[in-house]
């Protein structure tokens, strides 16, 4: 099991951002982490990458405890934060080199050219990040996330703000990466989740409301699209099940 989350809770002041959630993610599968804005997706991902500490509960990534073995967790995880923060003043290759150095990669130049190829950055590799379009910046973010060949990928809304052509490219990349890794990614777009994910976890107001293989989720709600299922589970008139 690559990711195991057990009764994880995070309080911001009095507010429960996530409330005793549990789920698992397995290698070779893409897990879609869905939920409306403010549901607690980013908070969960930040705990899983040892960025912020949880209030209670436990989470492990590749067997490493996110609270006690933060450095080990960060070595095996590739993470694309929400809004894809980058250094605009760096050239694409500089930025990749910076991240490669932090990881202490031996075959740095080889890895840089590998991920440039994988993410389709070839034509833009000599530009400054600040000069790139949003779609290409997203690819730089992804390239940085996979440069150390992580076993687990955590992608927070990797496709937000992309146009349809860019979308299909990134989706295909996520699928390919998921073939040999554990991928957890969050999105608002249900068609995307249907196209990319094997496993769906839906979170609403800090609680898990669905956790199933995409195929069995469809079996439980026959004849409905994922979008309809999502709305029925997270809409204001949602019936707890």
């Amino acid at each position, binding site marked *: 099991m690559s990711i195991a989350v057990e009764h994880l809770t995070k309080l911001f002041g009095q507010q429960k951002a996530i409330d005793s959630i549990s789920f698992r993610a397995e290698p070779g599968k893409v897990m879609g982490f869905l939920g409306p804005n403010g549901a607690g997706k980013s908070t969960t991902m930040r705990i899983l990458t040892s960025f912020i500490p949880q209030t209670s509960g436990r989470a492990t990534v590749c067997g490493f405890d996110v609270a006690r073995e933060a450095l080990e967790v960060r070595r095996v995880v590739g993470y694309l934060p929400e809004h894809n*923060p*980058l250094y605009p003043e760096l050239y694409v290759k500089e930025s990749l080199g910076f991240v490669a150095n*932090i990881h202490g990669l031996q075959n740095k130049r080889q890895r840089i050219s590998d991920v440039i190829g994988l993410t389709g950055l070839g034509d833009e590799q000599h530009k400054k990040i600040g000069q790139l379009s949003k779609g290409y910046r997203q690819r730089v973010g992804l390239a*940085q996330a996979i440069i150390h060949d992580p076993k687990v990928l955590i992608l927070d809304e990797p496709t937000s703000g992309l146009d349809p052509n860019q979308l299909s490219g990134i989706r295909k990349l996520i699928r390919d990466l998921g073939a040999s890794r554990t991928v957890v990614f969050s999105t608002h777009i249900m068609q995307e989740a249907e196209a990319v994910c094997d496993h769906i976890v839906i979170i609403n107001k800090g609680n898990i409301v669905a956790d199933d293989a995409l195929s069995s989720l469809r079996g439980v709600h026959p004849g409905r699209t994922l979008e309809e299922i999502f709305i029925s589970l997270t809409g204001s008139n949602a019936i707890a099940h």
Partner: protein
Amino acid sequence: MLTILRKEIAAFFSSLVAYIIVGIFLAATGLFLWVFPDSAVLDYGYAGLDSLFDIAPYLFMFLIPAVTMRSIAEEKKEGTFELLATRPLTDWQIILGKYFGSLAIVLMAMAPTLIYYFTVYELGATRGNVDTGAVIGSYTGLFLLGGIFVAIGILASAVTSNQVVAFTIAVFLSFFLFSGFDSLSRLVSLQQADTLIAAIGIMEHYQSVSRGVLDTRDLVYFASFTLFFLVITKTVLGGRKW
């Protein structure tokens, strides 16, 4: 840590502002040393760099916050701090990388003032008539002072995501620590405790080191204050509250 340090230096010198800041520092020290009548070497009669070391702390109070203000504040504002903090780096590695990166920038800005030393050395009535020991002491004092000011600047940059706020906090804190206690000690009502109060301030220790006497108590003072500010920085960042 070295990766962060190098990046810090490169990021600073990639902006035009960097050259303006360093330029202003050098221009100001040059003016005080050579041109302004009260302090200029040529009018002063004897060759020395005293006026450089008298004015440098006050220039450092502005130069160093200008160097450190973006260090962490910018990363918090742009969200890139999350990028660093989710890599296999400890918070200490990030903080120390930024600290020593900024300190290296300050040293680079200071290096050209060595030219003044060599000029005075050549200019003296008899060549070489300059107290080299005192100059070394003064540079040591300035370096230690820079060490504290950079730590203050990094802390100020960690408590906010606004560069201007970081700059302002750092200037005030640096000024207060440098000369605030000295002024306090002169208040009439505090006369009894004056030496004690003055000893908390940096100025007293800076002047003592600058005289060329390296007292371990002064070194301990500088080291512990620097560490103190870095530890607070670590605590502030560890909270991840922004």
